């Protein structure tokens, strides 16, 4: 019998044989108390700063509380939830969010996977250019989003100028931020610019995890490159790609900073994503109860969708 077959490690076995009072004197704190001493502060911090507010938000969501009014909290049951779900505007904001999430994820997947496939060919200088491509995702979305408003200025901004240079359309004939039809795509464009590197980096890791011998075997079987892509590359990269999509979908669904500074929900409310609605009702209209209910709905949606998705991801991984 080897040490690995024994329950516990060498130290744990020795510890088990030592009388407790001797162990305490020899080794200071017991393992169990060290474990709790080490883990408890983290759990306490998370309970205080994350869970307590969440529970409070759930409680507030059943009240008509307004935090700028000195009136006492009054419970109104599920009125807030009914108001939200019956409100057509809220549904529109959810639609705008869905449009944003689906479009940006689709673009990120196509461009990110494409770039990863190209970088994986290991041309000269590929690691330098990979780092260059990664830069946008490390930067502050708010600070960068703010600056994009200059780039998108119809007259003085370089974006319109470049477009007009290539298409011939006069640069002041369209406004990326002010136009009702263009603005939803503007936020998709900037978010895709920012987060495509994320998908690319994870896909690249997926590609590198595929052992060479599989391709060599496929080559022996005379599989065409096209067939190799669909039969080997894509299925092997899929778990990685799905992980990237999970993180990015959550990120896009909760998007606030970039869009708040780029369009702040405008023009009208065509780019008003749910988190911007939430911020407005909580911190501009001070409808605390109503906004807490919306927050709970948002949280349940993210959490529920993420859970279902993770199950699907695990199934793909097991295949």
């Amino acid at each position, binding site marked *: 019998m080897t040490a690995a077959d024994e329950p516990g490690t060498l130290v744990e076995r020795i510890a088990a044989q030592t009388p407790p009072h001797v162990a305490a004197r020899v080794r200071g704190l017991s393992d169990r108390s060290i474990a709790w001493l080490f*883990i408890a502060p983290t759990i306490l911090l998370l309970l205080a700063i994350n869970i307590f507010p969440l529970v409070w938000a759930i409680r507030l969501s059943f009240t008509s509380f307004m935090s700028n009014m000195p009136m006492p909290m009054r419970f109104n049951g599920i009125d807030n939830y009914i108001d939200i779900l019956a409100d057509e505007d809220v549904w529109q904001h959810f639609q705008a969010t869905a449009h944003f999430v689906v479009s940006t994820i689709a673009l990120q997947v196509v461009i990110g996977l494409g770039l990863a496939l190209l970088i994986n060919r290991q041309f000269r200088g590929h690691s330098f*250019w990979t780092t260059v491509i990664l830069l*946008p995702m490390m930067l502050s979305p708010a600070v960068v989003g703010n600056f994009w408003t200059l780039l998108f200025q119809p007259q003085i901004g370089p974006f319109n100028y470049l477009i007009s240079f290539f298409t011939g359309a006069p640069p002041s004939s369209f406004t990326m931020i002010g136009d009702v039809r263009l603005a939803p795509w503007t936020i998709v464009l900037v978010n895709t610019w920012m987060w495509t590197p994320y998908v690319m980096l*994870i896909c690249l890791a997926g590609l590198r995890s595929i052992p060479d011998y599989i391709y060599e075997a496929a080559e022996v079987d005379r599989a065409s490159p096209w067939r190799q892509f669909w039969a080997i590359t894509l299925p092997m990269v899929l778990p990685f790609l799905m992980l990237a999509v999970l993180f990015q979908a959550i990120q896009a669904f909760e998007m*606030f900073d970039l869009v*708040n500074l780029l369009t702040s929900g405008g023009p009208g409310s065509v780019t008003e994503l749910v988190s911007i609605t939430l911020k407005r009702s909580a911190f501009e209209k001070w409808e605390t109860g109503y906004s807490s209910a919306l927050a709970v709905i948002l949280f349940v949606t993210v959490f529920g969708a993420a859970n279902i998705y993770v199950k699907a991801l695990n199934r793909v991984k097991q295949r």
Partner: protein
Amino acid sequence: MSATTAHSIVEASPRAKTVAGAIVILYALITILPLLWICATAFKSQSDAISYPPKLLFTPTLEGFVDLFTVQTRQPPDFIAKLPPAKSWYEKLARERGMVIAGPSPVVGRFVNSLIVGFGSTILATLLGTLAAYGFSRFRVPLADDLLFFILSTRMMPPIAVAVPIYLMYRWLNLYDTQIGLILLYSAVNVSLAVWLLKGFIDEIPREYEEAALVDGYTRLQAFRKVVLPQAATGIAATAIFCLIFSWNEYAFALLLTSANAQTMPPFIPFIIGEGGQNWPAVAAATTLFLTPIVFVTILLRKHLLRGITFGAVRR
């Protein structure tokens, strides 16, 4: 690899490599164009920054930086002529445009706030994260998987969704608009990342090292301090940098939970205004100063980037 082919079957042909390289480099250049434009704008004069058509070539000036760090008032030329001669280069630069420097701008305070909150929350989150990660990695903790999932799930919460009760709580505890309030909040957000990343790093350190130390008469705590910590140093450093980047970049909480006193740079930069609208060179100067450290850190972190952005799920 067979002797008859010049390259392995799996390796791309030279032509395929060239094509791939060309496309990737083109994408890379397009993608950093906005960043280069920010840098360039920082060194433009106000009129160059908003000229039509957009200017590629311009005479560089430090006006943007001077505007960023000072508060200025416009004065009539005869008033400026009567003033004693300018003592410094930046005073001269302002006066050439008919402005007189009235004092320093609040930007320095915001920068200091960003640094204090950034480093404060990083130290706290990394410290707590290291301890918890060691606990989860080395001891049999009851319900360990559930606790780890709980820690991860706190990160999934939409920041705006918890902002309302946190705002009320902070008002009540007098933590609203304080550096310590932001530090606690960012630590809570970062600690989930820190635990997950560091657990991965500590799992990779062979247990035998500590066991040898314990056999040699070290206590658990001594073994942790003298054996595990030095081994995990790279991982801890990488984790700390990820925490720092998050705190440095964070906008939503900073916007909603701070105002004049503890505000950090991200909510402040959009409000750098000059006469009649945003002063773009000053905004660009602030943005450049704010983003540059992150660019260097990204280059340093290259090897650990993948791990950091996936909570240790993908390690390469």
